C-alpha cells in the first residue's frame, strides 16, 4: 500500500513532484550528455587513429604547411596535392620501411550527392593496409573501374550513379560511420581516380599545374618494419628523399589529443559541479518538504505506521520521482546529442563518434542508476530526520524533533 500512498502523495502535489523530477532530470541529463560528448570525442579520435593506421605519412613538401594537411585529416576539408609516383620505388627500397601504400586525393567541384565539394580518395587494393580493413565491414567485393564507395554522411546509396567532372561513377557500397573526415569522402581505385584527375584537368576548375595524372600519387603511407623505430625511419626519409616530407601520424593527432584531454577534463569538472549543486538542492528540497509534511507523518504514526515505514514512504516517493526524472533526463540527453552532436562536431573541428547501441544503453543505464542513487541519498537525509520525529509534540503543534 505504501507504493500507492507514495504515488497518491506525488500526484496530489504535482507541482512539487514535477520540480523534484526536473531536478533529477537535470542531473541525469548532465551526466549522460556529458559522458556521451566525452565518449564521442574519444571514440572519434580512436577511430581516426585506426583509420590513419600508418606510422608515417609521406606527402609532397608543399602539402606540409601543417594547416593544409591537418585540415584535410581532422576536419575533412577537401584538398589535393601530388608528387611523382617514382617516389614510391625509392621509399620501398629504403631500410626500415615495412608496409607501404599510395593514396590519391582529389576534391570534387560539385556532385548530385552533396551540397559541397567532397574529397575523393584513391587507394590501391593490392597494397592498402589502412582503408580496406574498415571497408570490409561494409563491402567485401573488389572495387571495379568507375565504381566508388561512399562515406556514411554522404547522401548516396549503393546503385546510385554520381557524376564527377562529367564522368559517371557507380556507388558500390556505403561505409560504416567513423566520426571522422572519412565519412564525407568518396573512395575509388587508382584507375578511377586517375581518370577523374584527368577529367578535372581538362575542365580546368582547379590549377593542377603540369602533372601527368597517370604518374602521380598524393601521399604514401608507411608502417615501420619489425625491429625498426618509427622516428629513425622518418628521419631517414626526410634526409634522403627530396621534395617530400615524412610526417609521424601520431604527431599529427597530438594536438587533437591534448585538446580532447583538456575538454574532457573541463566537462568532467562541470559535471561534478552540477552534481554537487543539484544534490545539495535535492537534499534541501527533500528536507523542506518533509518538514512541511511533519503533521501528515505524525498522523500516520498514530494510525500505526512505524518509523521504518515512514522512512520507507519517503524513500519510495523519492524513488518514483528520481526514476521518472532520470528517464526524462536520459531521453532528453539522447535527443540533444542526436540533434546537436553533428553541430558540436563541426563547431569544434574534432572527430566525433557516438557509441553504438550497446554503449548508449550502458551509458544511459549508468546515468539513470547514478541519478536514482543520488535522489535516494538525498531522500535518505530527510527519511532519517522523519524517522526521529516526536509525534506527540507535532500533534500539539510543537517543533517535533526528538
Amino acid at each position, binding site marked *: 500500500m505504501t507504493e500507492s500512498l507514495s504515488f497518491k502523495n506525488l500526484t496530489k502535489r504535482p507541482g512539487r513532484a514535477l520540480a523534484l523530477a526536473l531536478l533529477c532530470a537535470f542531473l541525469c541529463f548532465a551526466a549522460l550528455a556529458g559522458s556521451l560528448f566525452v565518449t564521442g570525442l574519444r571514440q572519434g579520435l580512436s577511430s581516426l587513429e585506426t583509420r590513419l593506421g600508418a606510422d608515417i605519412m609521406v606527402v609532397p613538401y608543399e602539402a606540409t604547411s601543417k594547416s593544409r594537411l591537418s585540415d584535410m585529416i581532422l576536419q575533412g576539408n577537401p584538398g589535393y596535392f601530388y608528387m611523382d609516383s617514382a617516389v614510391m620505388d625509392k621509399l620501398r627500397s629504403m631500410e626500415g620501411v615495412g608496409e607501404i601504400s599510395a593514396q590519391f586525393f582529389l576534391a570534387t567541384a560539385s556532385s548530385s550527392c552533396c551540397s559541397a565539394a567532397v574529397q575523393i580518395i584513391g587507394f590501391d587494393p593490392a597494397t592498402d593496409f589502412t582503408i580496406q580493413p574498415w571497408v570490409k565491414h561494409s563491402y567485401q567485393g573488389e572495387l571495379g573501374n568507375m565504381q566508388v564507395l561512399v562515406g556514411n554522411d554522404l547522401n548516396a546509396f549503393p546503385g546510385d550513379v554520381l557524376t564527377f567532372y562529367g564522368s559517371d561513377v557507380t556507388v558500390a557500397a556505403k561505409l560504416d560511420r567513423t566520426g571522422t573526415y572519412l565519412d564525407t569522402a568518396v573512395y575509388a581505385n587508382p584507375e578511377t581516380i586517375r581518370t577523374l584527375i584527368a577529367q578535372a584537368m581538362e575542365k580546368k576548375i582547379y590549377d593542377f599545374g603540369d602533372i601527368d595524372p597517370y604518374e602521380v600519387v598524393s601521399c604514401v603511407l608507411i608502417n615501420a618494419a619489425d625491429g625498426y623505430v618509427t622516428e629513425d625511419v622518418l628521419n631517414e626519409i626526410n634526409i634522403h628523399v627530396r621534395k617530400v616530407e615524412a610526417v609521424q601520424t601520431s604527431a599529427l593527432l597530438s594536438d587533437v589529443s591534448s585538446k580532447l584531454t583538456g575538454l574532457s577534463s573541463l566537462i568532467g569538472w562541470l559535471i561534478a559541479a552540477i552534481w554537487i549543486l543539484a544534490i545539495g538542492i535535492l537534499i534541501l528540497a527533500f528536507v523542506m518538504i518533509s518538514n512541511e509534511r511533519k503533521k*501528515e507523518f505524525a498522523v500516520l504514526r498514530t*494510525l*500505526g*505506521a512505524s518509523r521504518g515505514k515512514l522512512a520507507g514512504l519517503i524513500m519510495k516517493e523519492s524513488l518514483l520521482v528520481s526514476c521518472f526524472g532520470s528517464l526524462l533526463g536520459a531521453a532528453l540527453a539522447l535527443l540533444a546529442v542526436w540533434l546537436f552532436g553533428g553541430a558540436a562536431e563541426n563547431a569544434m573541428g574534432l572527430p566525433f563518434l557516438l557509441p553504438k547501441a550497446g554503449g548508449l544503453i550502458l551509458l544511459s543505464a549508468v546515468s539513470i542508476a547514478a541519478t536514482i542513487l543520488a535522489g535516494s541519498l538525498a531522500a535518505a537525509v530527510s527519511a532519517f530526520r522523519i524517522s526521529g520525529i516526536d*509525534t506527540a509534540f507535532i500533534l500539539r503543534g510543537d517543533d517535533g524533533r526528538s
Partner: protein
Amino acid sequence: MKLTALQATRNYIRKREGSNLFCAVEETSVTLEPGTLTVLSGPSGSGKSTLLNMFAGLLPPSSGQILLDDTDLYHLEDRELSRLRNLHIGIIPQGQTALAAFNVQDNILMPWLLYGSRKNEAFSEKRKRAEELMEAAGILELRREMPSGLSGGEIRRMAVCRAMLQKPEIILADEPTGDLDEENTAVVMDLLKEHAASGGTVFVVTHDIQVRTYADRMLSMRKGVVTEE
C-alpha cells in the same frame, strides 16, 4: 484490554526561571477498564494530552510504566508497538488530522492500508466496515470527497471512523469534540459511547462540559496530578 499507567511520570526540560525541569505528569497510577468511557478533564497545560500520548505509546514516561494488560508498551520495539497501535489502539488526535491526498473513504481505510492490500477478501470486509462506520457517523455520502471539501465537524467524524476501523479494543480521543457544534458532538460521542458499551476501553480528554454527560467515569487533572471525581 485494559490500559494502566503505573507510577508513570513525564518531565520536560524547559528554560524556566528557578528550574529547568518541568513535570507535565506527576507520578500517576490509573487504569482504564474495558467497557468504560473514561473522561479526563482539566485546564489547558494540566498534562491531559501528555498522559493520553503516553497511553498511546507515542510518548515514553520519564519513570514508571504504561501497561497494556501485562505488556509494558515501552519495552516493545517500535515496529511491534506500531503494529500493536495499528490493531488494538484507535487514536483520535487533537485538531484536523485528515490526510489531504486521500478521499474520505481512503482516509478511514488508512489503518488497514498501511499494512494490508486492496486486492484480497479482507479488504472487502474492511471497506464494508468503513461504510458501516460512515453511515453511523452520517458521512457515507461524502466518502468520495477529498478532505479539503469537508467541514470541521465532518473531518472530526471521519477521524472517529478511522480510529474505529480496526475494531480496536482501546480508543484514545484527544478533544474529539473541540470546535464541534452540539449536534456533531452528539454524533461523535454516541459512537464512542457505543464502542464502550460493546466492551471497548474509551479514554476521552476534553474541555467540553457536554462530554461529561457521556462519561462512565470522570477523572480530572491539575498541574500533572490526576484525581478521581
